């Protein structure tokens, strides 16, 4: 499972608003960094990693809810949840197939027809889940989910600066510099 990235320059004394900008920025980046190859059913860990990243993002959006404009946050949360649900719809049959294959290797030939029967059923669900995930990814792209998340981050960062909670110009520039560096080679949705 993908480990969450450290949040650069996060301090215990940061205001929640400034921390929200720093944390949501990184968690957003994590989510979209995991999108590459996620529809490939031969490597089920990709879906898992992106699903975990979607949960982490959703969690921090909820933790820092008071730091973002309510309407924009609600719309973003709805789309992140829809994406997480679609990832779950693909992940569930992935797990079921993996478990069944482990059982299949442990039992004899007489048990294989039952295993094969169930595998066919789960493969159909996996294909359905993949279709749902593809649609959710397309929706995220079309609705500019990433841009809306980045707008939340930018708004919180600017508000923190306006309130005197941001200690340096460097923090204000943090998002742009991070995007130029770590994100340069990440696949877009």
């Amino acid at each position, binding site marked *: 499972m993908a480990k969450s990235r450290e949040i650069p320059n996060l301090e*215990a004394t940061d205001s929640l608003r400034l921390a929200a900008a720093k944390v949501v920025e990184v968690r957003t980046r994590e989510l979209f960094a995991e999108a590459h190859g996620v529809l490939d059913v031969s490597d089920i860990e990709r879906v898992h990693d992106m699903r975990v990243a979607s949960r982490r993002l959703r969690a921090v959006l909820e933790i820092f809810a008071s730091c973002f404009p309510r309407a924009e946050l609600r719309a973003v949360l709805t789309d992140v949840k829809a994406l997480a649900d679609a990832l779950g719809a693909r992940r569930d049959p992935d797990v079921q197939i993996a478990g069944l294959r482990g059982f299949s290797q442990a039992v004899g030939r007489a048990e294989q027809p039952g295993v094969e029967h169930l595998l066919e059923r789960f493969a159909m669900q996996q294909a359905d889940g993949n279709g749902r995930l593809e649609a959710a990814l397309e929706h995220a792209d079309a609705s500019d989910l990433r841009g809306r998340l980045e707008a939340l981050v930018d708004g919180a960062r600017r508000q923190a600066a306006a309130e005197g909670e941001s200690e340096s110009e460097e923090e204000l520039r943090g998002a742009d510099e991070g995007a130029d560096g770590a994100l340069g080679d990440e696949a877009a949705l």
Partner: protein
Amino acid sequence: MKARQIKGLDPSASLADGLELTIRVRLDELHSFVPSALDPARGAAMHDMRIAAKRLRYLLELGAFCFGDFARTATKRCKELQDVLGEIHDCDVMLPLVLAEVAELRVRDAAAIMREAAGSDDVDMELVTTAPHRAAYRGLELYAASLQARRALLFARFVAFWDDLGRRGFRARLEHAIAERAAGRAIVTGPAARAIADGPAERAIAAGPAGVVEPGRGVVEPDGGVVDLGAAVAALGAVVTELGPAIAEVAAEVVPVARPQDSRGAIPPRALAPGASIDAGSGDADGEGPGEGPSDMRPAEAE
């Protein structure tokens, strides 16, 4: 399971204060599923408890650096709890699917046999060999049996793990860990924290959950011992605030987080804006109060 909402969290409060408040609420949510989740028939309660553990874990992942070693340990424990409950949930999802598949095959095979027996007033036993799915039952039934056995073992592991958390004072220690940084100690950050590699300064800063900074003395540890911060600071070039004029010039790197306590010694939730509140919502799914670990457990050694 819907999380309890923490309304009116003040965006200008510090991250540590906001996380402390939120962790308290999520920790309480986690315990609200006990004892119901300890009933093997209450799969839904276990599932909700898993979600509560996940919420708490993500908070701790984010804020463990504010609260010290036990918060990091608690992050791992939440992950372990989440994992075992997740595996139980996988069994709870899979077993009914397999049993439903068996039931569906039985209906379809019975229909096939009846078609073969059309016009007869009984089923000729030889007709059972025409059942199209007759070879599938054995594997499916055995898989169902293995899932049932695995679920029982995982549940036993979960109960043992939860009991162990209680014995180790998980709740009390985590509550203490998130509160003690606010009870008069200083949080050392940045270069100062990195400069403290070992020796008395490290012992002072990580003096344990009950260590308290006292101006002019140092850190008073639970056993009454005092770590002389002055010597440590001088030796290491590290910085600590509120300990005297000798180190005031480097105090900019140290963040004092002392806050007032009320008459009972409780620390008010400073991260809440005036008039704000925590909405109990539907977090307590069974209407039961939070489960309690040993109330007199004191923080001990870090795990």
